[in-house]
């Protein structure tokens, strides 16, 4: 008999031959980009909100589209507060893409080629959708 999870943070090594402790350890690999994206974007958004509150912009640059945003970024036209808000939102919406990338790496480490293919397919479709939307 194998060992079942005894606490919520246990790496379970169970009877099921397909559900190994190694596989469950890889759950944490996929969690890392999510955690980094979450904390980084929360910090940027909070910093941006504080700066916008302390130094309200003379004219708000709300609702920039991607082209305007990139243009403003290159020319450093955005006030720091608003720049941080946009950076935080960009970081947040990019996090799931990074997560799919992490899943590809995890499945490669597990040599699970079927799921390497599945996750690459999701990654490619997602990137294509993003590239098309930005044009």
């Amino acid at each position, binding site marked *: 008999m194998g060992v079942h999870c005894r606490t919520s943070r246990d790496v379970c090594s169970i009877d099921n031959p397909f559900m190994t402790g190694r596989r469950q350890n890889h759950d944490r690999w996929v969690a890392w980009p999510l955690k980094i994206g979450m904390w980084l974007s929360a910090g940027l958004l909070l910093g941006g909100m504080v700066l916008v509150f302390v130094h309200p912009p003379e004219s708000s640059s709300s609702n920039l589209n991607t082209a305007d945003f990139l243009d403003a970024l290159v020319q450093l036209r955005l006030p720091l507060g608003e720049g941080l808000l946009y950076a935080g939102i960009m970081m947040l*919406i990019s996090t799931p893409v990074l997560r799919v990338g992490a899943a590809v790496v995890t499945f490669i480490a597990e040599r699970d080629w079927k799921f390497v293919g599945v996750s690459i397919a999701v990654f490619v479709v997602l990137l294509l959708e993003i590239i098309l939307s930005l044009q």
Partner: protein
Amino acid sequence: MSVDSLLLAFGGIVAGTFGALLGLGGGVFLIPFLVLVLNVPMHQAIATSIVAVIATSSTGAAMNLERHMVNIRLGMLLETTTVAGAIAGGLTASMLDAAVLTKVFGILLAGIAAMMAVSGKLNTMDRATGGEKEVFAGEYYDDATKSSVLYTVRNIGPTMIISLLAGNISGLLGLGGGIFKVPAMHLISRVPIKAATATSNFMIGVTAAAGAFIYFAEGHLDPHIAAPAALGVLLGSFFGIRLSRILKADVLKWVFIVVLLATSVQLITRS
């Protein structure tokens, strides 16, 4: 900090709590709040809601992955059909009568709620025996019952078809697909409700990400609205995930049924 920012953060906390708890993302709660309470234009409300879904998904998935609640393989497989459905949704949107579709799905949700209500306790302790589909087998520790839950996943084909429809519908009706995916995983594939909501949380961020870039590219994303809402959602998601750990699966199922019925009424009246 303006009153509106505080209200946005409060709305975000409520949406994040229920979104993370039920694997829905929170759009069902946040969009009516933004439109009806704060008079935010619909396009901006949907764009903010999509950012909120990503915030819920990222926080919820990060916390659930640490505790092995997410079935990554099942989630990745269902994502392929959800993304295909979302693309098809964009293509078929102009061919279908949105009002009729909204009513049909409203009635469908009421039916799903009834099915969930009459479904008995699932036998989740089936032992894995090495079949092809047991590549999706999972195990997690349930804090509410202080026991380990081992489960296998069945009938993946029909659940993939429903995920395709969920992707399609989320594009057509501005709904998160979680409201269809969680019952499909639970009722058809016999995934325990806690693992189903955790796996749904994991998936919805990816579907939402593509939509978020589209709304950003079109200039609908207002950072002054999205930022406080997203911060509220991030905080609310922490509460939602912690709540999901201590709630018993039956209680979680009944909360889900109530939200299904409320969404069903909302859709039918909207149509």
